[in-house]
C-alpha cells in the first residue's frame, strides 16, 4: 500500500521535512484498534484513491455493513478469522509529523507480534473500550511498553458513544489506567475520549464530548518525538564481524552510543585489551575523517593485531562497560515452555552470543492480572526477574545507564523466546569482583624467561580422537624440557578425571570444559610456562573462547590426521565403542568436528613422523617469539 497524502506544506525532495515517528496502537482485543487506524487514515486524507469505495463494495457484496477496520484486514485469512493477526505498517502525515503506524494485535495469542511491532515504536497509543474498561490485555500491554522502553504513551478511551459520552465513566477509566502506568514509571502524554467509529476526538473535537479540553488523537501524535540516538553517552561499538577482504583488517559494527574517530584510545571488552583506532574505513570514500556518532554502521582498523571477535564491545578507555558473568534481568517470556530455575539458555546481548543458565527466579507475575503471584517459573506471556549465570564474561551495561546495551534476548532452540532489561550486573549471591583480590606473583616474567629461555604460551592441539594430539604433545613436552624449558602438559582426559569431573559431554559441558582448560593453561602461560593442551575441542566457538581467554599467548595447532586413519588407530577403543552404539556424544564418527579456519599450524601425522612434526612445532614457537633464538639455533644443529 502506498498511502501518502498530498503535502499541505512544501516538502524537501525526499519528502521528510516533518520528523518521522513510529507509533504502535495497542490494547485489549476488540477495543477498536483497527477501527481507529482506519479512521485516522481517513481523517488525515491518507487513503489511496478508490480504496474506501472498493472496500465498501466488497462489504456490500458480502452482505456485511462496512467497518473501518476492513482497511487493515488486508489478508484473506484475517477477514475469515475476524482478528488482526500480525503487525502491519501504514504511513500517513499529520500537520507536524510523518507517522509510521504499526498496528499490533490485541489477541493474547499474538503477543509476540505485539512485541515485534511495539519494539519499533517511538510512541504508543493504548486503546481502552469505554464500556469494558481496563482489561487484562490493557494492563499487559502497558507493562510491555515499559519493558520495551516505549516512554511516550497516549491513552484513548474509545467507544464513548456506547457510554453516552459520559464524563464520569471516562474519569473512572482515566484514574485507573494512569495509576497502572505511573506505577511502571510511564506517564501518559494524554488521555483522550473518542469514538473512532464516528470520528469524535480523532482529528476534531465534537460537541458530544464538549467537556473534554485536551488534545485530539491527531494532536497528541503531533506532540510525539522521534527516538534520539544516544550520542551523548560513552562510546559503545559492539563488534559484528572482522573482515579481511584485502590487506586491511576491518572491525565492523554499529555505534550504539557515543562517537568515535581516528586516534581514539579504545578498550576491547570484556578482555580489556587496549588499542588505538588507526583509521575509520568507508566506501566509496575512505578513510572517513569525520567523527562517527551513535546510529552509524562503521568499520575501523586498529594500530595493533589483537584477537578480537564478534560480540566484543569497543569503548573508550576509562569509560568501558562492565565485564560480567552474572546478570539480573527483568524479562518477558513468550515460549510455550515456562522458563524455570536451572534452565540452560542462550543469551544475546548486542552481538554477543553467550550460553548460560537461569540460577534464580526472583519474581514471576502475569502482567495482565492485578495479583502478584510468585511462582517458580515464568509462564508464557508473563514477566519476571531472573538471575543468569553465563559460561563466559560479557561486556554489558545496566539498562539505566544505556538502554541499548543494557537489554538482552533469550533464545530457545534457535528461536527468540523472550527478552528484557539488565537491571544489575554481577549482583547476587556470588562474590562480586571487588571482593576478589588477585595476588600477583612474586616473580617478574623476565626472571622466568631468563631461566627457561622462552616466554609463556598456550599451545592448543585440536583434532579428532586418535589424531595423535597426545603423542605430539608429549614429544613437544620432552623436547622443550630437554632444552631447559618449563613445559606443562594439560591433557583433556586427564583433567576430566579431576578438575572437570563434574562435566559431561553435552555442548554446554564441553564448552565449560574448554573454558576451564583455557583458564588453567593461560594461568600457567602467564607464569612463564608453555602449556601444551591436547583436547579434541570440536567446537569452533569453544576454541574461540579459549583464544579469547589466552589472548596473544595462544597458538592453535590443528592435528589434521584423516578421519579413517584416526579410526584405524583407535588408541582408546572409543571408535569401536561408538560404532557399537555404546558411547554417546563421541566426536569422530559423526560430523560434529569443526576444523579450525585459521590455525597457526596444521600437522597431518599420517604423513609426518613425530620428530618432524615436533620440529615444526618448535619452529612455530621460535618464529612467533616464544622460544628465544639460541634455542632455535641449537635445534637446527641436532
Amino acid at each position: 500500500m502506498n498511502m501518502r497524502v498530498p503535502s499541505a506544506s512544501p516538502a524537501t525532495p525526499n519528502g521528510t521535512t516533518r520528523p518521522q515517528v513510529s507509533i504502535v496502537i495497542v490494547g485489549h482485543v476488540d477495543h477498536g484498534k483497527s477501527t481507529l487506524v482506519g479512521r485516522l487514515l481517513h481523517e488525515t486524507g491518507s487513503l489511496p484513491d478508490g480504496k474506501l469505495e472498493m472496500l465498501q463494495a466488497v462489504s456490500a457484496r458480502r452482505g456485511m455493513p462496512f467497518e473501518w477496520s476492513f482497511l487493515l484486514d488486508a489478508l484473506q485469512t484475517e477477514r475469515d478469522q475476524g482478528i488482526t493477526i500480525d503487525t502491519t505498517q501504514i504511513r500517513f502525515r499529520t500537520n507536524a509529523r510523518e507517522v509510521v503506524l504499526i498496528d499490533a494485535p490485541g489477541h493474547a495469542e499474538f503477543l509476540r507480534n505485539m512485541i515485534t511491532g511495539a519494539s519499533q515504536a517511538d510512541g504508543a497509543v493504548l486503546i481502552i473500550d469505554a464500556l469494558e474498561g481496563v482489561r487484562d490485555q490493557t494492563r499487559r500491554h502497558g507493562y510491555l511498553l515499559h519493558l520495551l522502553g516505549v516512554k511516550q504513551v497516549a491513552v484513548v478511551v474509545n467507544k464513548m458513544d456506547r457510554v453516552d459520552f459520559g464524563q464520569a465513566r471516562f474519569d473512572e477509566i482515566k484514574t485507573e489506567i494512569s495509576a497502572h502506568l505511573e506505577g511502571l514509571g510511564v506517564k501518559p502524554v494524554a488521555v483522550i475520549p473518542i469514538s473512532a467509529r464516528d470520528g469524535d476526538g480523532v482529528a476534531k473535537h465534537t460537541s458530544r464530548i464538549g467537556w473534554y479540553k485536551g488534545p485530539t488523537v491527531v494532536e497528541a501524535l503531533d506532540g510525539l518525538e522521534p527516538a534520539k540516538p544516544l550520542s551523548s553517552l560513552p562510546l559503545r561499538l559492539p563488534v559484528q564481524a572482522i573482515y579481511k577482504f584485502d590487506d586491511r583488517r576491518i572491525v565492523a559494527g554499529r555505534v550504539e552510543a557515543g562517537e568515535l574517530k581516528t586516534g581514539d584510545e579504545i578498550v576491547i571488552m570484556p578482555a580489556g585489551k587496549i588499542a588505538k583506532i588507526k583509521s575509520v574505513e568507508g566506501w566509496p570514500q575512505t578513510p572517513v575523517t569525520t567523527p562517527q556518532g551513535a546510529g552509524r554502521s562503521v568499520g575501523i582498523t586498529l594500530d595493533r593485531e589483537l584477537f578480537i571477535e564478534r560480540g566484543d564491545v569497543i569503548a573508550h578507555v576509562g569509560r568501558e562497560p562492565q565485564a560480567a558473568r552474572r546478570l539480573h534481568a527483568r524479562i518477558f517470556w513468550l515460549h510455550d515452555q515456562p522458563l524455570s530455575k536451572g534452565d540452560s539458555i542462550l543469551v544475546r546481548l548486542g552481538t554477543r552470543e553467550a550460553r548460560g543458565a537461569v540460577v534464580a527466579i526472583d519474581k514471576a507475575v502475569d502482567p495482565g492480572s492485578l495479583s502478584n503471584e510468585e511462582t517458580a517459573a515464568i509462564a508464557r506471556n508473563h514477566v519476571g526477574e531472573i538471575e543468569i549465570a553465563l559460561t563466559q564474561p560479557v561486556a554489558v551495561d545496566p539498562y539505566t545507564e544505556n538502554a541499548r546495551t543494557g537489554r538482552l534476548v533469550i533464545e530457545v532452540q534457535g528461536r527468540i523466546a523472550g527478552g528484557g532489561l539488565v537491571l544489575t550486573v554481577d549482583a547476587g549471591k556470588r562474590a562480586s569482583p571487588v571482593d576478589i583480590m588477585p595476588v600477583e606473583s612474586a616473580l617478574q616474567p623476565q626472571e622466568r624467561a631468563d631461566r627457561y629461555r622462552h616466554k609463556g604460551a598456550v599451545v592448543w592441539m585440536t583434532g579428532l580422537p586418535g589424531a595423535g594430539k597426545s603423542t605430539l604433545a608429549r614429544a613437544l613436552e620432552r623436547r622443550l624440557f630437554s632444552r631447559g624449558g618449563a613445559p606443562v602438559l594439560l591433557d583433556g582426559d586427564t583433567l576430566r578425571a579431576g578438575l572437570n569431573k563434574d562435566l559431561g559431554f553435552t555442548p554446554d559441558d564441553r564448552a565449560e570444559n574448554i573454558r576451564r582448560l583455557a583458564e588453567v593453561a593461560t594461568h600457567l602461560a602467564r607464569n612463564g610456562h608453555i602449556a601444551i593442551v591436547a583436547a579434541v575441542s570440536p567446537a569452533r566457538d569453544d576454541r574461540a573462547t579459549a583464544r579469547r581467554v589466552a589472548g596473544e599467548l595462544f597458538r592453535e595447532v590443528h592435528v589434521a590426521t584423516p578421519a579413517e586413519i584416526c579410526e584405524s588407530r583407535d588408541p582408546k577403543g572409543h571408535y569401536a565403542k561408538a560404532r557399537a552404539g555404546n558411547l554417546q556424544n563421541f566426536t569422530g564418527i559423526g560430523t560434529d568436528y569443526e576444523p579450525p579456519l585459521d590455525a597457526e599450524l596444521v600437522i597431518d601425522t599420517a604423513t609426518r613422523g613425530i620428530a618432524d612434526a615436533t620440529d615444526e612445532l618448535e619452529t612455530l614457537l621460535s618464529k612467533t617469539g616464544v622460544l628465544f633464538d639460541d634455542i632455535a639455533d641449537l635445534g637446527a644443529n641436532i
Partner: protein
Amino acid sequence: MDHLDQLEAQSIYILREAFARLKKLALLWSLGKDSNVMIWLARKAFFGRVPFPAMHVDTAKKFPEMYAFRDTYAQEWGLDLKIEPCPPIDAVDPTLPPAARSAARKTEGLKMALAKHGFDGLIAGIRRDEEATRAKERVFSPRGAEGNWDVRDQPPEFWDHFNASPPQGAHLRIHPILHWTEADIWAYTARENIPIIPLYLSKNGKRYRSLGDQDITFPVASNASTIPEILAELESTKVPERAGRALDHETEDAFERLRVAGYL
C-alpha cells in the same frame, strides 16, 4: 544523521548480521531500483565488494534494457553473478489466475536454485510500503522446507535481534530494505548516484514504476523524466506503486497466495 543516513545504517547492520550468522547467502537481484540500492548497500557494508553471489532468477521475459543493465553492472560492480532459469508455465499451479501463474514461475525457479546451491539465506529487496502482505514481514523471515511462508507462526523479532537459525532443509529470507519507502529508494538513488534502468523515466508520457516480466507489467501515465520529478510525483500521487503489475490485481488474494508459496 538525516533520514537516509539512518535507513542506510540500519540496512548495513542487517546485511552484516546476515553475513555473520548464515553459512551460505545469496542476494536476489531483480535488476530493479530496489535491488540495485540493496547491492549498493552491500558494497557499503563490505567496503566495496559483495561477498556473496548476486542471483538473478530469470523468467527470460524481462525487458531488453534490463538484461543490458544486468550484464553491464554485474561486471562493473564485480558481482559473482548467478543466472538461474525458471521452469515453463505448464509446471506451475494451474488454479492461479493467468498473470499470477506467470509470475509463479519465478517461485519455482527460486526453489530450483535453492536446491541447486543449498543457500540457507536469500537477501531480498522487498519493502513494507509496497504491498499489504509485505508489510507483515519480518526482517529475518523463516521459510519452510518448500520455501513457504507461515504468516501465522512468525517468530518474535525485536531490538535488532534476528532469528537466524533456519530448520534443516529450510532457508531464511533477509529483508534489508523492508523499512524503506519508494520515495526513500529514489532519494537515495539520487544522492548516491546509483545507476538505474531508463524505463523508470518518462518517455512519451509514460513510465514504469515497478519492473517485472514484459507481458504482465505496464507503464503508468507520468511526465517524470528525472529522479527529482519522480519524487515530486510521489508526493502527490495516490496510485499504488504496483498498479502496473497485473498479478496484484486479478483477485483479492492472488498476491497473498503467491507469497505464502514462497514468492518475494
